[in-house]
């Protein structure tokens, strides 16, 4: 049975712990989620402006149990982005913090719990595919209205698989370090709910004293992070911190450089902590592979093996499978967690399973003689900075929208914006920061005489310095 339907199985075990100290048992969580669901009707769409708090999780579980699809967005979503999404998708309900309800004037209030209110937005029924459970964003903040359509089966399969290879136990205790509107953050919640383990919900960052106070007082066992989180942990000299309860570290959301993996793997080995380096994508619900902890020291740049129930293979440009170790091709994945497809509009919510369980990852990879996989590059133009996926094409298009002729290139450390108009540099930096919500150190403007283009007018990226 799917984790969200199986909550009663764990009865009086604690499911959710808020920073305030409020706790909910599995039974209470199920009752409150069902109570939420009495306010939402079938063939409707819910927008959830999520925080890492009990109310958000109740709303999320209520939608899953009530079989009403929900889109998870950040509670900090930019007002103009939200306005665009509301216009495009016309959700029937919005579950959001009361203090941002001003963003949706004239919406009637149906229900509230704590700081959250359920607002009635659009009255129109819509055609929703019966398998559609969740809409999750990929690049979060570049203003793209694109959602990944995730099914009930996807969520159930990935939660169960992750719980299996992590060996999640009922006496584990996860603490949130990533937002729940992000697939990796949500997978931590899902995989622990699957096993009857508790989750400590907090919006605090690792750079805040209150995070560590909560970690220690709750005796959390499991910490997850994107590569940047590991830079922070290292800077905080985590190995010298007093964290006797910590026994699992997981890492995903981009490639953690091999040096850091090695450093963490050695410390974890000495402390008896299991370190799981992992790989995945929203298109595969969350997770596709993991590096078994015992292999982290020997193969620090590997993404490991497919998750239980999953399968990898590599294809050349012609679509032929590559079987020689060390030969590079595009990585393909098959599993019950491969999502249905994308949605760009309200009408797309009626669409079914377009991928049929197979995902072309868009990553270039190779496999070694031991069956361990390695990502060596990307097929398409996006980077992952500070844990956020940023599509370089989109940034270019958005800048062209404000009349800045440019070309965007870069890597996971820096996005470079090549432009011809030196006087617009400040404007460009301000604009991209606002759009992506990334710190200015993620960007660099480079002024050049002209953007190199071929005869068809396409930008020649290889000629950019």
């Amino acid at each position, binding site marked *: 049975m799917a984790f969200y339907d199986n909550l009663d199985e764990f009865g009086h075990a604690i499911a959710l712990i808020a920073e305030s100290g409020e706790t909910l048992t599995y039974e209470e969580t199920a009752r409150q989620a069902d109570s939420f669901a009495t306010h939402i009707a079938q063939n409707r769409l819910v927008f959830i402006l999520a925080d890492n708090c009990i109310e958000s999780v109740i709303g999320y579980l209520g939608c899953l149990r009530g079989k009403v699809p929900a889109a998870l967005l950040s509670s900090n979503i930019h007002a103009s982005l939200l306005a665009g999404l509301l216009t495009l998708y016309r959700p029937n309900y919005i579950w959001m913090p009361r203090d941002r309800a001003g963003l949706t004037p004239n919406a009637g209030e149906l229900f509230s719990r704590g700081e959250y209110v359920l607002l009635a937005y659009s009255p129109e029924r819509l055609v929703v595919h019966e398998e559609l459970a969740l809409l999750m964003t990929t690049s979060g903040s570049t203003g793209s209205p694109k959602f990944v359509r995730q099914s009930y089966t996807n969520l159930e399969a990935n939660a169960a698989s992750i719980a299996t290879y992590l060996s999640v136990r009922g006496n584990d205790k996860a603490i949130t370090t990533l937002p729940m509107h992000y697939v990796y953050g949500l997978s931590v919640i899902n995989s622990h709910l699957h096993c009857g383990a508790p989750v400590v919900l907090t919006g605090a960052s690792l750079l805040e004293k209150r*995070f560590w106070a909560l970690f220690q007082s709750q005796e959390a066992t499991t910490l997850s992070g994107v590569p940047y989180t590991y830079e*922070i942990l290292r800077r*905080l000299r985590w190995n010298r911190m007093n964290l006797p309860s910590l026994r699992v570290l997981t890492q995903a959301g981009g490639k953690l450089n091999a040096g850091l993996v090695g450093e963490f793997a050695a410390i974890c080995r000495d402390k008896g902590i299991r370190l799981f380096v992992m790989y995945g994508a929203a298109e595969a619900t969350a997770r596709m592979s993991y590096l078994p902890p015992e292999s982290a020291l020997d193969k620090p740049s590997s993404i490991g093996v497919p998750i239980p129930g999953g399968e990898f293979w590599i294809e050349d440009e012609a679509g032929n499978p590559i079987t020689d170790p060390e030969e590079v091709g595009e990585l393909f994945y098959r599993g019950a967690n491969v999502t249905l497809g994308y949605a760009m509009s309200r009408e797309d919510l009626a669409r079914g399973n377009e991928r049929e369980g197979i995902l072309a990852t868009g990553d270039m990879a190779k496999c070694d003689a031991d069956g361990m996989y390695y990502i060596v590059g990307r097929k398409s133009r996006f980077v992952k900075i500070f844990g956020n996926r940023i599509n370089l094409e989109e940034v270019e298009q958005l800048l062209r929208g404000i009349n800045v002729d440019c070309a965007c290139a870069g890597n996971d450390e820096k996005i470079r914006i090549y432009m011809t108009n030196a006087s617009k540099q400040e404007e460009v930096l301000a604009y991209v920061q606002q759009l992506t919500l990334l710190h*200015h150190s993620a960007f660099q403007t480079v002024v050049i005489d002209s953007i190199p283009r071929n005869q068809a007018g396409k930008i020649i990226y290889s000629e950019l310095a």
Partner: protein
Amino acid sequence: MSATNRERYDKVILESLNLQPQDLNDGLIYNSVAAWDSVGHMSLMAALETEFDIMMETDDIIAFSSYLQGLEILAKYGIQF
């Protein structure tokens, strides 16, 4: 004329967090401005360490939650304001 320690501190904050002089007040706390997120904080700590030639302790990094608090914390490293 060389800058005072306070002027040096203010300059680092202004540059790391992309702010204007009028933003330097007791309302300036972690997460209160767009650039002071976790990435901004790490960047700020590194910039202060470079400017004042110090190595900050973990407890101080996580306690450094505001513009004013920062002054108290740096004072522990012998920097007089």
